């Protein structure tokens, strides 16, 4: 460790000690963990923070047996242990709740919890009665609410997380690892999660929470370890540090995530969704219910919501990849409902998808081939592609967007930020007057995010109308002129972004408030067990 890191105090008898952990991912030559040192005391709630790509998840995956370190040792309860797979971790009492849930949607809650440790009848058959009983008892013991027979795909995100936690508790884990548990929760659900964590701590569990949200570190943890670029840079008592210091340690410099959004008068309406509804056979509730959105030139309309409430469907509809069931879409007054994505592009509408890696690019194709997918017809002589012209065009774009790469290599080898820049270069290559950004900075480092924000703001300055769909509430509140919230496929909030309160917005996102319906008190879809 070097430079401005804090002195590490040595701890007596830590419950967990990870020492000298090094891990290289050969596929992209990333040194995810570089001689990492990590200690956790028994019974504490310990936060592990860092930027995306700092190596926190890798470190915990090594602890949980999903990855093997190239070098390093792990000591648990004083003894050296070799964790070769999750089963070894389970045996030690270590359990992990993943950032992207590892659940089987079609199975019930009970089936998901017992999977891999099924109670048996006659030795060979599953004892379903016993399984159900175990799940109910475990939930009761830890004061969790869940319906054991519900198929998991019908649950809310918060409830799915409860299932994940139940999985570990069912296996009698004492050491819990939670990887970015709050990234898909609303404020209320986060509160509930933290209450659960405190209960678990009282019942003797030790918890490590991986996060990059610094205010949560302050809210829930007692100690915090900061990682940066694969190395441990600091260990602090939470009480003695603050968000600014942690942020500086995480990034290496002072980062202020506030920028100036100048006040610009809105222009005419450039894009409009009118009474758009999307239904699906077999689903009682429409996926999108009577959506009305109006976007003006020089305006950023932010769409907030928890995933699963229609944001993805909205993105698909606006992007031209899905047809509406009813309703209309207008561009500058022209009816463009159900036009295909290539037709939309011809009209001057662009779309930066949330699924950067699969929808937004072809990972195995070169940067050049990725960049020209929408406009390669401009480089034709007859039916033949003019290689030289294409290369010059791509090189020019590379300069303009400061993308660091060799244009001929597969785009999958680039960092997330550079991939997003290629996508931007492609989408903005023609004159646009409307653009949809979906989760534009998800998973990106600070520098790339800043680049994207600047681009969005400059587009706004030029007179482009923008819809920004994002689960990052800070981002939306900073960028949007107008904010709307979606819940269960409906718009429940739609107002100018002036002095809005994050907590209140969170309540809209969870359906506890609704501007357009007299409060339709929906009973929570769980049984109090």
């Amino acid at each position, binding site marked *: 460790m070097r430079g401005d890191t804090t002195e590490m105090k040595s701890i007596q008898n830590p419950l967990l000690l990870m020492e000298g952990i090094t891990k290289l991912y050969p596929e992209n030559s990333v040194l995810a963990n570089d001689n990492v040192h990590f200690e956790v005391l028994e019974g504490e709630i310990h936060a592990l923070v860092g930027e995306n790509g700092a190596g926190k998840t890798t470190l915990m995956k090594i602890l949980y047996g999903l990855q093997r370190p190239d070098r390093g040792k792990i000591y648990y309860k004083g003894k050296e242990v070799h964790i070769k797979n999750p089963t070894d971790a389970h045996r030690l009492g270590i359990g992990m709740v993943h950032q992207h849930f590892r659940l089987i*949607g079609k199975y019930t809650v009970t089936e998901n919890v017992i999977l891999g440790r099924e109670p048996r009848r006659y030795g060979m*058959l599953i004892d379903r009665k016993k399984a159900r009983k175990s799940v109910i008892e475990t939930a009761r013991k830890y004061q969790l609410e869940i319906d054991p027979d519900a198929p998991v795909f019908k649950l809310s995100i918060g409830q799915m997380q409860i299932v994940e936690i139940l999985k570990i508790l069912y296996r009698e884990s004492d050491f819990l690892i939670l990887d970015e548990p709050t990234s898909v929760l609303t404020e209320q659900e986060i509160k509930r999660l933290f209450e659960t964590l405190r209960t678990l701590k009282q019942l003797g569990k030790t918890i490590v929470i991986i996060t990059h949200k610094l205010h949560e570190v302050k809210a829930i943890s007692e100690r915090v370890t900061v990682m940066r670029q694969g190395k441990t840079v600091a260990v602090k008592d939470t009480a003695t540090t603050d968000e600014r210091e942690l942020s500086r340690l995480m990034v290496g410099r002072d980062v202020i995530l506030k920028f100036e959004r100048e006040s610009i008068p809105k222009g005419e309406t450039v894009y409009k969704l009118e009474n758009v509804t999307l239904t699906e056979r077999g689903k009682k509730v429409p996926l999108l219910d009577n959506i009305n959105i109006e976007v003006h030139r020089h305006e950023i309309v932010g769409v907030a919501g928890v995933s699963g409430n229609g944001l993805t469907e909205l993105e698909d509809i606006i992007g031209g990849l899905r047809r509406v069931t009813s309703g209309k879409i207008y561009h500058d007054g022209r009816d463009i409902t159900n036009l295909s994505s290539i037709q939309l592009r011809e009209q001057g509408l662009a779309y930066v998808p949330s699924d950067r890696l699969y929808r937004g690019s072809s990972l195995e194709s070169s940067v050049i081939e990725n960049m020209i997918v929408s406009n390669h017809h401009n480089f034709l002589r007859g039916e033949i592609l003019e290689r030289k012209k294409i290369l010059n065009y791509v090189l020019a774009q590379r300069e303009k967007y400061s993308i660091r790469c060799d244009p001929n290599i597969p785009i999958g080898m680039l960092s997330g930020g550079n991939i997003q820049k290629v996508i931007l270069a492609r989408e903005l290559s023609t004159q646009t007057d409307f653009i949809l950004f979906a989760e534009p900075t998800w998973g990106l480092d600070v520098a790339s995010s800043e680049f994207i924000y600047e681009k969005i703001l400059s587009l706004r300055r030029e007179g482009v109308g923008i819809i920004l769909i994002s689960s990052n509430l800070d981002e939306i509140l900073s960028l949007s002129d107008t904010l709307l919230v979606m819940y269960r496929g409906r718009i429940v909030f739609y107002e100018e972004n002036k002095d809005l309160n994050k907590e209140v917005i969170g309540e809209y996102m969870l359906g506890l408030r609704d501007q357009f319906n007299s409060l339709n008190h929906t009973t929570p879809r769980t049984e109090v067990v």
Partner: protein
Amino acid sequence: MNTSHFSIPMLHNSISIMTPFLLAAIGGLFTELSGMLNIALEGLMLIGAFFSVIFAAFTGSIFIGILCGILATLLTALVFGYVSLYLKANIFIAGLATNLLAPGLTTVLAFKIFGNKGVIRFNNIPNIPVLHLPSLERVPILGDIFIGHNILVYISWLLVIIAVIVIYKTPFGLRLRGTGLNSRTIRALGLSPRYYQLSAILISGFTAGIGGAFLTLNMGAFVPNITAGRGWIALVAIYLGNKKPLGIVIASFIFGFTESFSNYAQGIAKGIPADFILALPYIVTVVVMILFSIWTHYRARSQ
């Protein structure tokens, strides 16, 4: 044409003829549920057909013949599974490889052992025991159709029942289906998806081997390419049966019926060339496949 004259025997034969389809398909179901496309059923069946008949001939015992056929098929399935799962080969190409290996290997061995690349007849193979239940046989119509088949037919039914229990009522089945639905989840639990996928491949080898044995032991001879596309049709049966055991039974019956019909039609419909009648099962299969996908397509569309 007195239809009642041959409709009962035709149905009776359908039950018998559907057995290899059913066997290959029910084993193939395991591989499908674990998330893999298994086109090697054809080659595996041929291996089973060959080895079971020659060992039955060497030892004079049907039982040992079937056992050896299964063993040989399991070995081949092991190679197929190992290459696909551990050497990470493209499973579709590996399946093609198995389908090339089978006729190549069996012809080479036949030539080496018997000096003959064509039909090999064996005179000392006993017939497969037939199950006679006189009391049940007297049941009108149903008795004629379902009773009086050789024991492999009834074994196939037993295997289907066992398969249903294993798939839906055991931990293995729960984890197997989980592997097909979301293998990352299985891995995160500390289980190995490859274990379940390899098991599924071996199971499909087991049942395909029995299916192949059924073909040759019935005739007491080995005919090159005796499987004649049945492995492919078994795959279609899995899809048509919507990857559920009951559906597979019904689909297999439909194909068994088609083949039985074309056998009878050859004798009766003298005007139609034999080749066209032989082509009928394939054509029917394609048509059924297309109709099924049309139905699925419009069902999904009408939302």
